[in-house]
């Protein structure tokens, strides 16, 4: 992954002076020998046999998970401070707590698979290979941002990594995602589309329209419900008769995944992608059996911040609940414990990694702060295709006049 750069450490690392363990500690390395880890929770499935709980990973992968999640976490916290310092304005929806979903998904797919998500997209952008500098620039509305400063927090895009954003209207990305999947199937790309939405969006009509279309036309679409249990201020039990979002597809197979476990997410996404690309039905009597390529993955996750920076996040849930999840289910801590248990790195080395990450984020923020804001003429550009637009002017035609480029 573009984000992490691991270097093999030399023997200048301090050895722990006294350990009760007699195992010789491995140095942090780009070791790719497979390690098998079991997911903390089994998968619950609907209309399909769930994948195995044993996930293949490696030291390199675990370390990259740790580093990338720490980067995402640090980015979101930095965004929080920038918002409070009024350098980021408007609406800012933070993803901290949910990093495992973005990371696990990336580990299972390629950049040719498309991802489309809602407005809580900063970490998804990073996962797709987006840079910190572009992210912070976009948040602060600068021209060096990924959307040239015209989109803001809710509209991050990355075309070369098949990241289709970044959507403000809840649920609007669902039919779009199915359209992307259709295009992929049509051009025989052997790629799939992961359409992410939240538990709030799960009650939108357009989601069911998209679900039906994708199933009807055998589209390689994987619908991922990031269930953080709150649709802004409304808990899932108050907005959904059936909060088992993975079953909501009815005839569409579904899988419920512990979204705080990056390895479980990776396993589920790998499984879903393979299922979506299968060329033919399973079962003996394939005329009667309707094979659905599509799948719903419900990621059981949690967000620490409120819905957005305008929402304190504590009026509809208790602080105990938030800190409880942080203590027991935090995705970064989980990977940290795995790394230490498998002797891949020490606590100190991981802390050093986190410090490095923090420096990286601070540097990106500082650089982004220096970037310029868009020119006023940008107000009129890209409304239509270049050269195809109309003239636009302000109240006094003599005062403000701009012709679209």
């Amino acid at each position, binding site marked *: 992954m573009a984000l992490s750069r691991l270097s093999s450490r030399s023997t200048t690392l301090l050895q722990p002076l006294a350990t009760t363990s007699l195992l010789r500690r491995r140095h942090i390395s780009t070791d790719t020998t497979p390690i098998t880890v079991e997911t903390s929770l089994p998968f619950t499935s609907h209309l399909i046999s769930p994948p195995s709980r044993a996930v293949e990973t490696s030291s390199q992968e675990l370390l990259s998970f740790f580093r990338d999640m720490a980067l995402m976490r640090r980015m979101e916290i930095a965004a929080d401070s920038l918002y409070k310092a009024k350098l980021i*304005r*408007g*609406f800012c929806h933070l993803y901290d707590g949910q990093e495992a979903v973005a990371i696990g998904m990336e580990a299972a797919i390629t950049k040719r698979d498309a991802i489309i998500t809602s407005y809580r997209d900063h970490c998804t952008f990073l996962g797709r290979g987006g840079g910190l500098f572009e992210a912070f620039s976009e948040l*602060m*509305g600068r021209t060096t941002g990924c959307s040239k*400063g*015209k*989109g*803001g927090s*809710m*509209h991050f895009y990355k075309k070369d990594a098949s990241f289709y954003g970044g959507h*403000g*209207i*809840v*649920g609007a990305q669902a039919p779009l995602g199915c359209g992307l999947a259709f295009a992929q199937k049509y051009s025989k790309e052997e790629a799939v589309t992961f359409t992410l939405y939240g538990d*709030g*969006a799960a*009650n*939108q*009509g*357009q989601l069911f329209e998209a679900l039906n279309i994708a199933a009807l036309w055998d589209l390689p679409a994987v619908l991922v419900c990031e269930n953080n249990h709150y*649709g*802004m*201020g*409304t808990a899932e039990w*108050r*907005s*959904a008769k059936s909060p088992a979002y993975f079953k909501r597809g009815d005839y569409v197979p579904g899988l419920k995944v512990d979204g705080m476990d990056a390895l479980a997410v990776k396993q589920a996404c790998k499984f879903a992608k393979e299922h979506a690309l299968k060329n033919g039905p399973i079962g003996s009597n394939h005329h009667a059996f309707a094979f659905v390529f599509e799948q719903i993955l419900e990621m059981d996750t949690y967000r620490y911040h409120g819905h957005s920076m*305008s929402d304190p996040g504590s*009026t*509809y849930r208790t602080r105990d609940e938030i800190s409880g999840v942080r203590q027991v289910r935090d995705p970064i801590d989980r990977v940290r414990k795995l790394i230490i248990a498998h002797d891949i790195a020490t606590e100190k080395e991981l802390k050093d990694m986190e410090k490095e990450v923090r420096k990286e984020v601070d540097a990106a923020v500082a650089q982004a702060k220096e970037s310029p*804001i868009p020119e*006023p003429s940008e*107000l*009129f550009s890209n*409304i239509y295709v270049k050269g195809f637009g*109309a003239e*636009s002017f*302000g*109240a006094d035609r003599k005062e403000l006049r701009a012709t679209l480029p």
Partner: protein
Amino acid sequence: MASLLGRFCRKLVVPGSAHGSRMVSTTACDSEAVKSLNLYSAINQALHIALETDPRSYVFGEDVGFGGVFRCTTGLAERFGKNRVFNTPLCEQGIVGFGIGLAAMGNRAVVEIQFADYIYPAFDQIVNEAAKFRYRSGNQFNCGGINLVFNLPSKSLLLIRLLFIGLTIRAPYGAVGHGGHYHSQSPEAFFCHVPGIKVVIPRSPREAKGLLLSSIRDPNPVVFFEPKWLYRQAVEEVPEHDYMIPLSQAEVIREGNDITLVGWGAQLTVMEQACLDAEKEGISCELIDLKTLLPWDKETVEASVKKTGRLLISHEAPVTGGFGAEISATILERCFLKLEAPVSRVCGLDTPFPLILDAIKSTVNY
């Protein structure tokens, strides 16, 4: 800014008596107690009164239970119960459709759409169902109508109430500076093109309370846009009792002779400032608050333009196809020979509402 708003908010308001409940027995009218309130508190008060005076009224929408994102529904769930004030799932089309059905069964449904930018999934329900229900059923069904209710509160007193029931859809609209593409839109023009519904936009807390009560009690479906910029910014003396401001009646809030200015909602704040600046140059401006955009008070504007001979319309929404075009065309038809100059429109630019951060602060203080 606050003093500016205080200035033009001080106009007298005629309490509506033509609409709403007419009680045979009179209750003592409370003294003219007023309280200094901002816009969201005034709307909150209006909702409290609406729910209090009619047991078959309901307030629902996304997150209204804890008070809503703008606190307009604070205290309602606690006071009137979760059966009458409740959260809905995130589905605008479903929410409005549900409200239409509820209203058709003889109730007052007050629907909240969290931001006017999100109202589009519900557009089909509003245009194709709410607006046409009465028309296509030959007045058999409607989502706004008249109920005759007999109450016997005591042995000697018979209370006959004429209750107008119906659907009211409330949504915060308008720019708030940093709202960006999806928290700043002014979609009133789309709705003004639909015969069968009413579109109402208040300019201040006192107006908002009266107009909202009128809208809730109007026997037609009403779309009520609240200027979110003014939720906290505008503070005014608002009478505490139950009063209504008539719909489809524009108000001349500032008299003048040289030019007529027409606007609604938060834009009037800006226009009032323009009037003051113009006055320094010796131009006397007449400022009209349209209040109800559909059906709009053509007579008041016509009379004013016949007096001044000039018209300028201003709204936040983009100029092309905005409601100013309708006003311009109508006034042209009615006042052509009296016009000294073409009708002017000072409106939003023809772009999606952009992501603007602090650059805008030089012109708009938010």
